């Protein structure tokens, strides 16, 4: 067991790609936690999708030991966190398990939107913050200017920020010293008191079942203990406890201030609730910890198997994914157009993409994705309120009193040169400016925006109008009424439910026209002409006509080579698989998502 004074628990936080995982690599390496031959870049990003995209999705805990200059050996528990805004929840709950943060800032980029967001979360969690200026090896690095910027924009002391290159290893010993000297030990911890431990996270391991990550506040947790989850009420026998180094390493016990894992034959991740308090069944602690707000999905879309026969496999696959990801939700959905599928909830678009990718690649299921949507609050005349997750379920407008939509507070950091484009984009998306400040040559714009206008392509548009120089962070701020209507799309006079969407009345014509034009490009010509219309209720607000195909025939005949014809047939068969049939019309699968992409 380690004395509290010789324990340091901290998270590594930063804007996306500023080098958190690379810094974690160097800390692991320099302390000899992992044998040199087992080292690889971003060691903690173990999931395929993390390695492929070069980003962290899941927070990871590692215990390392550091013999400090003061002659004592310290136990350091670090948590490497994701940088992308979709996974902000991982960061905030990680911070609740530790006392300090290393705030990594890329010295060639400076403060970005998630840098700000993370600092505020760290301050809320009462953290000591040690700023670390990374990538000083880059020619474009300007650590002094960035330190100034941190002081100006964020308002935290940065003159003693540690200058490092996580890539070359420069400054890593200083980081280790700063962790020991500048971050506090666990605030309290009584070994003799009843067990009080925080359930920080849980994940599903194919061999071991559910693994729970815990932070011990008081008491001692051992193999064989019978524990109780205070919120969910579940009781379990502990099979094993241990720590991540970063491989799972069994330990005799976990004492106050320590972070580690327990394994107790828990079946599903859903049986555990992050933020719950774990105690002994026999000798419980008196008050539970305050707990965390659960993460809630904010973006919804329909996922349908291209091949209806895949439906059951798809359900199994989604259940497996959900085992490990409590913020991904799904329920069955039927669409007249697309058949059986699921309405799924995600933390954001990247989260949606990650799940979709995994379903397609790990489980080999081809999917059709429908327009992402948000949750609307429909207040009926009779005083009841229903949540609308799917525009197709929009009730009879006659029964509706008002519709409310979720709004967000968006913080955008951008170089001055691009500010005009950013303001225009926000304006176009029905944004209301809340704040606009300057720091050096960068501007910080804060907007109140409808989430609905952001979920689909806002981030892509922002990146493209600013050539990638803007960064973006958002938080939900609540619901507000607006004139929102359901727009339906009719193809060859038949409504296609999977294409209907909620829009603001004033933007309906514009969106309707854009959708019809886009669909006209996306749907291939047929042997007859096809009207494409957008309508609100029974009223058509936009219309395009896809003219009939006029020529599709192979001119040459290659002597007796009929196999060429068969190749054509094979190609046609493959092409047909990528289509969905609506009456006489075939719509390509990608059209459901691509129809929404707007150029402006």
């Amino acid at each position, binding site marked *: 067991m380690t004395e509290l004074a010789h324990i340091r628990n901290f998270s590594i936080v930063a804007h996306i790609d500023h080098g958190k995982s690379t810094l974690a690599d160097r800390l692991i390496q320099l302390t000899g936690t992992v044998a040199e031959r087992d080292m690889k870049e971003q060691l903690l990003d173990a999931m395929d999708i993390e390695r492929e995209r070069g980003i962290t999705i899941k927070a990871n805990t590692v215990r390392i030991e550091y013999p400090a200059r003061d002659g004592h050996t310290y136990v350091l528990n670090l948590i490497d966190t994701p940088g992308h805004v979709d996974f902000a929840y991982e960061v905030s709950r990680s911070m609740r398990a530790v006392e300090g943060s290393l705030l990594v800032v890329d010295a060639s980029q400076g403060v970005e939107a998630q840098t700000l967001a993370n600092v505020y979360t760290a301050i809320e969690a009462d953290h000591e913050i040690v700023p670390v200026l990374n990538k000083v090896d880059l020619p474009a690095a300007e650590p002094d200017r960035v330190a100034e910027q941190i002081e100006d924009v964020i308002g935290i002391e940065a003159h003693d920020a540690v200058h490092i290159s996580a890539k070359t290893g420069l400054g890593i010993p200083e980081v280790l010293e700063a962790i020991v000297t500048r971050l506090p030990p666990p605030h309290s911890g009584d070994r003799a008191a009843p067990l009080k431990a925080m359930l920080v996270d849980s994940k599903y391991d194919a061999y071991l079942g559910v693994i729970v990550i815990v932070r011990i506040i008081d008491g001692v947790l051992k193999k064989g203990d019978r524990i109780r989850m205070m919120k969910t009420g579940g009781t379990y026998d502990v099979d094993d406890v241990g720590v991540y180094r970063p491989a799972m390493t069994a330990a005799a016990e976990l004492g106050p201030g320590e972070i580690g894992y327990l394994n107790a034959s828990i079946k599903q991740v859903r049986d555990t609730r992050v933020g719950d308090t774990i105690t002994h069944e026999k000798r419980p602690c008196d008050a539970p910890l305050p707990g965390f707000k659960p993460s809630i999905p904010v973006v919804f879309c329909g996922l349908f198997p291209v091949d209806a026969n895949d439906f059951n496999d798809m359900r199994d696959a989604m259940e497996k994914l959900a085992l490990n990801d409590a913020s991904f939700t799904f329920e069955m959905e039927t669409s007249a157009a697309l058949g059986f599928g699921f309405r799924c909830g995600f933390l954001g678009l990247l989260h949606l993409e990650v799940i979709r990718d995994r379903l397609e690649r790990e489980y080999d299921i081809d999917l059709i994705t429908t327009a992402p949507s948000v949750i609307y609050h429909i207040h009926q005349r009779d005083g009841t309120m229903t949540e609308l997750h799917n525009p197709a379920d929009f009730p009879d407008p006659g029964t509706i009193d008002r519709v409310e939509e979720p709004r967000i507070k968006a913080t955008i950091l951008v170089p001055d040169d691009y500010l005009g484009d950013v303001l225009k984009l926000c304006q176009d998306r029905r944004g209301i400016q809340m704040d606009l400040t300057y720091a050096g040559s960068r501007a910080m714009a804060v907007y109140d925006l409808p989430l609905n206008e952001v979920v689909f392509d806002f981030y892509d548009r922002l990146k493209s109008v600013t050539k990638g120089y803007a960064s973006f962070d958002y938080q939900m701020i609540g619901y507000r009424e607006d004139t929102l209507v359901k727009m339906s799309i009719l193809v060859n006079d038949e409504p296609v439910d999977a294409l209907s969407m909620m829009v603001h009345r004033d933007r309906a014509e514009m969106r309707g026209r854009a959708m019809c034009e886009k669909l006209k490009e996306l749907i291939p010509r047929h042997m007859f002409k096809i009207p494409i219309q957008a309508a609100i209720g029974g009223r058509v607000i936009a219309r395009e006509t896809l003219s009939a195909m006029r020529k599709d*025939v192979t*001119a040459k005949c290659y002597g007796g080579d009929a196999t060429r014809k*068969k190749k054509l047939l094979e190609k046609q068969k493959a092409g047909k698989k990528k289509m969905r049939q609506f009456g006489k019309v075939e719509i390509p699968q990608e059209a459901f998502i691509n129809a929404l992409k707007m150029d402006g």
Partner: protein
Amino acid sequence: MRRIALYVHWPFCQAKCPYCDFNSHVVRQVDQAAWRDAYASEIKRYSSNIPEVEVGSIFFGGGTPSLMEAETVASVIDGAQRAWRFANDVEITLEANPTSVEAGRFRGYRAAGVNRVSMGIQALDDGDLARLGRLHSVSEARAAFDVAQETFGRVSFDLIYARQDQSPAAWEAELTRALGMAADHLSLYQLTIEDGTAFGDRLARGGLAGLPDEDRAADLWDITQNLTEAAGLPAYEVSNHARPGAESRHNLTYWTGGDYIGIGPGAHGRVTQDGTRHATEALSAPLAWLFAVQRRTGVETTAPLTPRDAAEERLMMGLRVHAGVDLRQIDYRPRNLDVLQEDGLIELDGPVLRLSRKGRPLLNAILRELMV
């Protein structure tokens, strides 16, 4: 006696045209004696497997068969005649490129037994001939055509249209001139850009400006049908037009499900034996084929077609010709017949399925409805 057609592939050309993806190659020298022997030994091999048939037609295709020495052509025809019986009205066609050199060999071909030539004139515009990478001018082609008409009973020629920057008016004028040349058969192909050709690469790199879009291509198609009909050479197949009675009997064999033997590099054959149709395909690299023939190692692959495959092939090929397909002859029930008929794209004449005039330029899309 059962009729069969014989296809002979000559895989060499003077230059490779930028649009062409036929099995054609440019080489410095060809040992014609070796090729003669190889064709002869292939004919022997086939005749011992398929003895009791009557040859209805022979077609020398390429490549550029008009680069064959007359002796080589004669040796093939003689060999075939010794191996099998010839029909009284046997049609023997040779594809010829329209240069003066080749015109010089025409008499020899006639003496060898060739009674029909198909000339690759391609365009009646010198600028476009150059763009198509052709080695002849319009006047040279016309001269070669005149020699051919004097020499052979039946002459056809090919044009490629829907070329870069070709306006409907320009095509109308060009086709009118072509019809005035008094051939009784014309092949009019819309330019197809094939992967793996020089044009294919150019298109992929964003080049080849001025190719017609679908609507322009359809307009050019309509002009073609109208003018050829008015001139008495209506289409009898997608791209083939003839005065009634002057159709290419050899090609009709492919389109109407007849049997044919394919000899030469990359040649395909379809032979029915004991009620099962077999597909043959020879090695396509010219020297690989030649060596395989010389060493009597495997020259080709042979595979039986399932009744389903045979029926699909029959439909795909058969609907190219205006006569259509007798559905009683195939072991396959096409789908969506009622919808297609309602939309006026097909006609059902008793058991015979054929495309309507409106459906003809949409054959691929219709096949998709019928079979996919």
